[in-house]
């Protein structure tokens, strides 16, 4: 069958088009093992966004457990709904949490600031950390410290993505907005205005990539 057809090598953009249509997260992650180029394509920030915007995958829920004494640090559990969807409706259902978000410096209080495109922004003991809970391949990215960030109320932090400018934005308590586009270094800031945000228990759709700011 296939012998009658010459199988051509597919260019990267076509491989991307195929991988982004994989119907479940596990299949995408297994494809990272095929070769280095495939892994690189899957880890591109635009891969996560593209898959997220397709909305064809069941969401993953992220649960937070606050720290409880020195032996029980703050924890995040990830629940993949494609495996657990049927069980969610049952009483006394046992759900399998897949893995936990890597948190530097265990034992400190951790707060979710926001999430978008599958990235989660955390406040870990005065560091703002952006991590990728679904792929969880690399340590999270710790944002560079900003001047006067912690002088005002922490309850007003926010994290979001602006499709119009194609930038991730992070808002401090004073209402200033700092922004960063994929792959660029550092944050620009901080004008007025507000960013639309997704808050707390996060529906992180699809496979997300670490954004290398």
């Amino acid at each position, binding site marked *: 069958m296939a012998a009658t057809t010459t199988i051509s090598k*597919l260019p990267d953009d076509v491989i991307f088009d*195929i991988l982004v249509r994989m119907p479940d997260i596990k*299949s995408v992650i*297994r494809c990272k093992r*095929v*070769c280095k180029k495939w892994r690189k394509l899957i880890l591109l920030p635009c891969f996560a966004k593209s898959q997220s915007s397709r909305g064809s995958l069941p969401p993953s829920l992220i649960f937070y457990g606050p720290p409880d004494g020195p032996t029980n640090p703050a924890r995040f559990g990830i629940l993949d709904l494609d495996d657990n969807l049927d069980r969610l409706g049952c009483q006394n259902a046992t759900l399998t949490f897949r893995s936990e978000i890597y948190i530097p410096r265990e034992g400190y209080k951790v707060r979710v600031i926001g999430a978008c495109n599958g990235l989660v922004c955390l406040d870990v003991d005065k560091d703002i950390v952006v991590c990728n809970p679904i792929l*969880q391949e690399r340590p999270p990215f710790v944002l560079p410290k900003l001047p006067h960030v912690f002088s005002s109320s922490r309850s007003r932090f926010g994290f979001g993505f602006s499709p119009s400018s194609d930038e991730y934005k992070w808002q401090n308590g004073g209402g200033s907005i700092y922004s960063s586009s994929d792959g660029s270094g550092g944050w620009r800031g901080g004008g007025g205005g507000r960013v639309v945000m997704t808050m707390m228990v996060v529906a992180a759709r699809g496979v997300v990539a670490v954004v290398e700011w």
Partner: protein
Amino acid sequence: MASSIENNNEKLTLKSSDGEEFLVEKHVALQSTLLQNMLDSDCSSADVIPLPKIDARTLALVLGYCKKHADASSSKQGELNSFDSEFLKDMDMGALFNLVLAANFMEIKGLLDIAAQKIADTIKDKPHQEVREIFHVENDYTPEEEAAVREENRWAFEGFP
């Protein structure tokens, strides 16, 4: 349809990589953004448009898809959907690859969508070694690197070698 009457006499000739010529009605060719742009910018004054990357077998399939979609009215979406799934049914990987390449080159979004989706659905449950063979991809990981990728994503490889 008014448009097809109006364009009835407008046809263009496409030539495949292996030299076969296809006479195509203009409204069918317009399914391809590449051809549409060529027609808009009047690059089509040549009698024959060569498509050096697409063989005759693939081009015939592509034009079959374009004709069906160009002729169907919007009220026949259900019919088009069943045409699409029937169109790719039983197609081998080699033919699918050629089709997805042609759709990418000729910029036919609908065809690219269904062909890429079909390939994704076919490889989703296959082990990575088999995927490498299908795509003719060489494993460029060292054994240590490959083990690290597997270990970092252990949960996804449960039940896989």
